Every structure is written in structure tokens, then in C-alpha cells.
């Protein structure tokens, strides 16, 4: 008979206020093979762990059940402690009586009854637990960072500085991301390019970093320590090794009517182009869709004018296959589409622009060389209205329910900079709330109001109409409870941000989960904020949730540290909860092989002892434990019941079912 120890945690009052802990102890003590039962205020604390360890040693416990918070929280903690006391860590199970009991049920009698049922189910299961040994797998000492914005750049630099190889993959022709489009950054008003471009140069010059721009992830397989990734390096039609970045090709290109993505479509670019002056790498790319040579076969001017013979119209996409120990997602964001917000006239009026467009308009390297002017007539606006929360905190279903977090601050920045550069301009901001929870943020906002006389009106803009050469802004003033109408020459919409559309595709490829808004989900919201639930996949920047530059840089560093935690090891312990085959009853039908998503099962001719005790030579299924990830698909496909799964065996699950029903 087993000697099972049961430990019930109070979790302060989190469990004890709703579950009668003493009653749980009393119930489990009545079970014959429960040799020891005790409760403790905080089982996860040092004292709680010691209580368990002493009981294992002194009572000679052979199995342990902890009734506490979710196993996602502390299963690893308790298993480690059990191992230190000499018990195989896989002989311990958790009954989740906090998240799935005390926190969701209010009635104490009902919750106590359920806690007892969950404890009994865990006890029933643990009787069938077997001691398991984790295997080992090699670690490839190279990291992949997907996304070349400030998040990806910082993560790549931090990993490279620690002495490991990093590949940085960026979809666009240059690294730099959204930050390269910004003019100044709050709350210090540093020039964005001045703080970003040196980092871009560092990345390009670093011996440990390889940059793949104009490239995308094609395929991902493998697991932590051993990912195998196909990168599609799209054809630039320019030989990067020969190009000097002189820019003659883009000056002479006759096809100049393509909206310039870098300037948010405020002006046009040529078909062969360098994204922006400080681009890394400073190598142009031919946009084949708009190139006359590719579309009509005539032209070829760039090839003729290129002094270094770098143009290559025959270049083809290249697939690079590389192995990595860890992957960081840093795919960033875009602004939402405003077509559903007709009231702002964004699609109709050239003088209604998004904040990101405003950044380009005020940037010295932008389409107007930094002169703030209306896109309709080139005049300098005298009255500007900023509208906050355009599509953010929107429960109507047109926008996003979440707060985009950065808009309050960049709106204050844009309003302040406008007043500073053009003191005769009248600036009004409409807001729902002004949120400034950051170091120096509220002081910054107050400067905008107090020193720069920006008019802040609490209220929402309901309608904007074009009237002659100006705009009429109709809004509510919530504090005076009145409706107001303002004349404006320009309206700037603080548009909600959303994850890059590639996030969803990558989530599927990497089996990293995303939330309902397509932000990547962290493994634990508080304790593992830069890890995805998939081992070896980490999160950096806005792809995990809205954040500003300093937060992004901090998270990027954190993700790098997590990567280093993997790369610094030669071997990783593998999950021993893998499938195994009972060769005695395996018929060799290989139904399991067909369903295995990892190709971890294969038929092999072996000498086996059959159910009658006779030796025979036949084909049986063999599981490659290095490849098996432990999903259990094979166990259900097996018609003989020969396939089973460590940690979640048929007996273990059936025992739980029986205990509950």
C-alpha cells in the first residue's frame, strides 16, 4: 500500500476563507492509504516546503498531494522540494483548490465539498503515478529574433553582447521599426532617430549578429534548444555585397507614384527605394509590383546608372535553414484601420490625419522636411484639434476594448511641440481620461497644460465636418455638460494600436498562444511576463501588449536574459511525460504513427514477449522520446491500448474520473 501525504494550503485567506481546511484534512485522513495529512498557512513558503520535506523523510511518504493554487503556479516549486527530500518529483500531484475552487465558489459548504472532491481525485491519480526521469537534449547556441524594431534590436544586442550568435529577421527592407518613424520621444523629447540609429548601426556592426531584412519566417519545427527554422529571404533585386547605398538608382527611377509606406503614404516613393536615409542595411530594394522593368520589360535605367553594377533583375527568393536554441518574438504593432470611424472624416479629408502621420509631418526627414503644414493646401494650420482614444477603450465593437497606453503621452508631446515651434497655433485636446502613470509622465502632461497652454477638454468628438477650407469639430464637454463646436485647420487622431497581422501566423507556426486581440499571451501574467507558454519562445515589445519605448527596451532586455538562461546551458532537461508503447500488446498496426504530429513514432521489428510469455519477432511501435512532446494523440488512436502517456496514463485519468463520479 502507498503512503500518501496530503498537504492543504490556506493561501492566507485566499483558500481558507472559502474552504474549511480542517474538514478537508479530516476527509482525506479517512482514506486508508493516506498516511499523513496537514495544513499550513502558506505551503509554498519555506516553512510549508519544510513541512512537506520532513514528512516525506520521517513518515516515509511514497506519494504526495498538495491542495493549493494552480499547478501552473507552483507545481515546479513543490516537485523540486520533493526531489530535494528524496522523492521522485513526478510522484507529486496538485489539487487546484484556489483558482478552480475557492476563487470561483462563494458558499463555504459547497466549496469545501468540491475541495474534498478535487483532493480525492488527485489522491486517486497519484496512486498510479510512476517515478520518471527527465532526459537531456542538446542546446543549439544560437538565437532567433523575429522583428527588427527597437524591441528586437535591443534583445539581439543584449544576447550578442553576452557572446552568443543571433539572427535578426525583419520583414521590411530596413530594421528600425516604428521607432524610426517617430520624431521626438516623450517625456524627454529626445530625437527618436538620434537614440535609435546608433543602436541600428551597432546591430549591423556586431560580429555576433546576422541581419536578414526583407525576410520572413517560412516554417518552424523542433522544440526548445533545437528549433529548426526556414527563413525566406526575399529577392531585393540588388546585390547587397556590391551596393554602396549611393542612391543614384532611386533618384533616376522613372516610376515614382507608389505611396511611401515609411511616410504613412503622405508622399510617394520610387519603385527602387531605400526606406529612409539611415536605413540598415542601406541597400535599396526593387518593389517589383511597381517597377517598369518587371511590369513591362522596358526601362532598366537603374541597372544602367548603378556605378557598382549591383542591380540584379534575376535575383530569386532564398530559403535559409538554420537551427536555434531559443526564439524571441518582437513583431510590434500597427495602427488600426479607421474606415469604420466615418464620423472623423479620415478617409474624406486630407487634413484629418493619424498621430503617426503627424509624426512624419513634423519630422525633419519627413515629406515636408518638418514643416507642419496641411496636406490639402500646404498652409500652416492655426487651429489644431487632437482627439484621444480613437478606437481605444471602445466597446462598440468598431475599435479595441483595451487602452493603447501610449496615446495620452504622445498626444501631450505633439501638442507641446506644436505650441513650442508655432506659438501662434491654438491647440485643443479632447480626452476621455488622461493617463500618465510613468516616471516623469504626469509632470510632462502638466507642462503641456500649464506652460504651453494646451486646452484640454474632457469629452468625446462626435462628428467632424468639412466646411469650406476648414473643419468643424462637434464634441461634448463632459465637465460643463455642454455641446461645443470648434473650428480647426487640422485634426489629429490618436489611433489605437494593434499587433502586427503577422502575429497570428507566427503564433500558429510556433504554437505560441495569442489572446482575443492577437497579442501574444505570456506564460504567467505576473511571474513569467516575457515567456510564451511554449518553452524556448519569448516575447519582446508591443507584440505582448501596448507599451512605450522604455518599457519595450526593459522587456527586450528581460527576454534576452531568458534566452541566455537557455543558451548558457549545454543540455536541457526534457519533459519525461512522453508516450510509451506496451510492446506485449502492440499489434504493430501503426495507427499511432499516422496521428503523431512530430513524427516521433515508427514501426520497428523487434523480439518481444507476447501475452502468452512466448518470444516472437514482429513489428511494434517505438517512440522516439527526444521527438515526442507528450500530446497523447497516439494513446487514443491505438486500438489495443498499447500506447500510453507518462504522467497522464489511462489508469491515472480513469482513476480521476472514478473519484469524481
Amino acid at each position: 500500500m502507498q503512503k500518501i501525504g496530503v498537504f492543504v494550503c490556506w493561501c492566507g485567506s485566499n483558500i481558507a476563507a472559502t474552504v474549511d481546511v480542517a474538514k478537508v484534512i479530516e476527509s482525506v485522513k479517512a482514506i486508508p492509504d493516506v498516511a499523513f495529512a496537514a495544513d499550513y498557512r502558506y505551503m509554498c513558503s519555506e516553512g510549508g516546503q519544510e513541512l512537506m520535506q520532513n514528512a516525506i523523510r520521517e513518515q516515509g511518504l511514497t506519494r504526495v498531494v498538495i491542495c493549493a493554487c494552480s499547478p501552473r503556479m507552483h507545481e515546479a516549486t513543490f516537485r523540486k522540494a520533493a526531489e530535494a527530500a528524496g522523492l521522485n518529483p513526478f510522484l507529486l500531484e496538485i489539487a487546484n483548490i484556489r483558482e478552480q475552487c475557492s476563487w470561483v465558489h462563494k458558499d463555504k459548504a459547497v466549496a469545501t465539498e468540491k475541495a474534498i472532491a478535487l483532493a480525492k481525485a488527485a489522491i486517486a491519480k497519484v496512486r498510479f503515478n510512476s517515478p520518471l526521469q527527465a532526459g537531456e537534449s542538446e542546446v543549439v547556441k544560437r538565437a532567433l529574433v523575429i522583428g527588427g524594431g527597437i524591441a528586437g534590436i535591443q534583445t539581439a544586442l543584449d544576447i550578442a553582447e553576452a557572446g552568443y550568435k543571433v539572427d535578426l529577421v525583419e520583414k521590411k527592407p530596413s530594421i528600425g521599426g516604428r521607432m524610426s518613424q517617430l520624431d521626438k520621444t516623450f517625456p524627454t523629447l529626445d530625437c527618436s532617430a538620434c537614440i535609435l540609429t546608433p543602436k541600428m548601426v551597432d546591430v549591423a556592426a556586431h560580429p555576433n549578429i546576422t541581419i536578414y531584412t526583407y525576410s520572413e519566417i517560412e516554417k518552424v519545427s523542433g522544440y526548445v534548444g533545437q528549433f529548426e527554422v526556414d527563413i525566406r529571404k526575399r529577392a531585393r533585386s540588388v546585390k547587397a555585397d556590391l551596393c554602396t547605398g549611393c542612391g543614384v538608382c532611386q533618384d533616376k527611377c522613372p516610376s515614382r507614384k507608389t505611396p511611401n509606406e515609411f511616410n504613412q503614404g503622405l508622399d510617394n516613393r520610387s519603385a527602387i527605394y531605400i526606406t529612409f536615409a539611415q536605413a540598415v542595411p542601406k541597400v535599396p530594394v526593387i518593389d517589383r509590383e511597381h517597377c517598369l522593368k518587371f511590369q513591362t520589360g522596358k526601362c532598366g535605367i537603374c541597372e544602367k546608372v548603378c556605378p557598382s553594377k549591383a542591380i540584379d533583375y534575376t535575383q530569386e527568393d532564398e530559403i535559409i535553414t538554420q537551427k536555434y536554441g531559443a526564439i524571441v518574438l518582437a513583431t510590434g504593432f500597427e495602427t488600426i484601420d479607421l474606415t469604420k470611424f466615418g464620423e472623423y472624416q479620415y478617409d474624406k479629408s486630407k487634413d484629418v490625419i493619424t498621430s503617426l502621420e503627424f509624426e512624419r509631418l513634423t519630422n525633419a526627414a519627413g515629406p515636408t522636411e518638418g514643416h507642419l503644414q496641411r496636406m490639402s493646401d500646404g498652409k500652416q494650420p492655426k487651429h489644431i484639434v487632437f482627439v484621444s482614444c480613437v478606437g481605444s477603450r471602445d466597446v462598440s465593437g468598431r475599435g479595441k476594448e483595451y487602452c493603447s497606453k501610449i496615446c495620452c503621452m504622445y498626444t501631450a508631446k505633439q501638442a507641446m511641440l506644436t505650441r513650442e515651434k508655432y506659438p501662434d497655433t491654438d491647440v485643443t485636446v479632447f480626452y476621455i481620461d488622461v493617463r500618465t502613470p510613468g516616471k516623469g509622465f504626469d509632470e510632462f502632461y502638466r507642462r503641456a497644460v500649464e506652460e504651453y497652454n494646451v486646452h484640454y477638454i474632457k469629452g468625446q468628438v462626435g462628428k467632424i465636418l468639412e466646411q469650406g477650407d476648414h473643419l468643424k469639430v462637434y464634441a461634448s464637454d463632459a465637465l460643463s455638460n455642454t455641446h461645443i463646436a470648434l473650428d480647426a485647420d487640422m485634426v489629429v487622431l490618436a489611433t489605437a494600436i494593434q499587433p502586427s497581422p503577422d502575429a497570428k501566423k507566427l503564433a500558429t507556426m510556433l504554437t505560441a498562444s495569442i489572446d482575443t486581440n492577437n497579442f501574444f499571451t505570456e506564460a504567467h501574467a505576473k511571474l513569467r511576463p516575457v515567456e510564451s507558454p511554449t518553452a524556448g519562445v519569448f516575447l519582446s515589445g508591443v507584440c505582448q501588449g501596448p507599451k512605450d519605448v522604455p518599457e519595450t527596451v526593459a522587456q527586450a532586455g528581460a527576454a534576452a536574459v531568458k534566452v541566455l538562461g537557455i543558451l548558457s546551458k549545454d543540455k536541457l532537461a526534457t519533459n519525461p511525460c512522453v508516450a510509451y508503447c506496451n510492446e506485449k500488446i502492440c499489434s504493430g498496426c501503426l495507427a499511432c504513427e499516422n496521428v503523431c504530429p512530430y513524427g516521433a513514432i515508427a514501426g520497428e521489428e523487434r523480439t518481444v514477449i507476447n501475452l502468452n510469455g512466448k518470444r516472437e519477432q514482429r513489428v511494434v511501435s517505438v517512440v522516439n522520446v527526444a521527438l515526442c512532446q507528450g500530446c497523447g494523440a497516439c494513446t487514443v488512436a491505438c486500438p489495443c491500448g498499447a500506447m500510453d502517456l507518462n504522467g497522464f496514463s489511462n489508469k491515472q485519468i480513469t482513476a480521476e474520473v472514478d473519484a469524481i463520479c
Partner: protein
Amino acid sequence: MLEAAACENTNHEPLIVAFCCNWCSYAGADGAGTARKTYPANIKIIKVPCSCRVNPLFILRAFLRGADGVILCGCHPGDCHYTSGNYYTRRRMKLLMSMLSFLGIEEGRMRVEWVSAAEGNKFSETMNSFAETIKGLGENVKLRDLRCKK
């Protein structure tokens, strides 16, 4: 169904087993807990690595032992941690459900739902709605005699 409900104890508190995959739905259930989104206590969760680990025999076992309802929750199609596990689940459970109705176990007693790790609200709403359905169906009398319980 009406007949069954009419002749049975109307105060019957149903017993419901919820199989939840480790990566999405079990985390979603934790999310419901963290957000204090309540659902009936007669729902007991069994953790499995993937929804595809759930053998239809486990579900039949639960019904035989007296469960009034069984719900199986996994990652949304396309989001499976094991890439394709929930696709197997979808096909297997479709077959199981048609067999259950052939055996005379009401269709509503078995449900498959996709709940992601971020959908604590959805987890709670799903459990509430399933519990209500099962309450409406009453005790699972079809297999009562097979249980040999007094």
C-alpha cells in the same frame, strides 16, 4: 427528455466532468479564477496535456459512473500547442456524439468547446451555460441501471 425530467427528482444536483487541455482551457479556467468569475461547483476539472489525450472511453466511463454531463475544452482550432491535436479531438468527438445519441444519451450532455488561455470570461460563461443545459436535462437516467449503485 421531458418525460425523464418529469419522473425524476427535480432537485437533482447534476455532476459534470470537464476535461481541459493544459495549454489553453486549463489556463482559461485559472483565468476565470483569478478574475473571480464564478460557475457552479458541481463542475470538476480534469487536466490533460491536450484535448486529443481524451479517450472517448474516459467520457463513456464518466457517464457510466453517473456523470450527468461531460464537457471537453481545448485550444481554438489552429492554436493547438501540439499543432494538430484539437483537430483529432474535433473529429473523434463528432463520432462520439453521434454514437451517444444513437445510444439514447441526450445530445446536450456532451459538449466540446474551444477556450483559450486568455478567455477566463468565456470559460466561466461556457461552464454556466453548460451547467444550465444539464440541469434542464435532469439526471442521466439512461445508464443508471448499469451503474449498479443503490
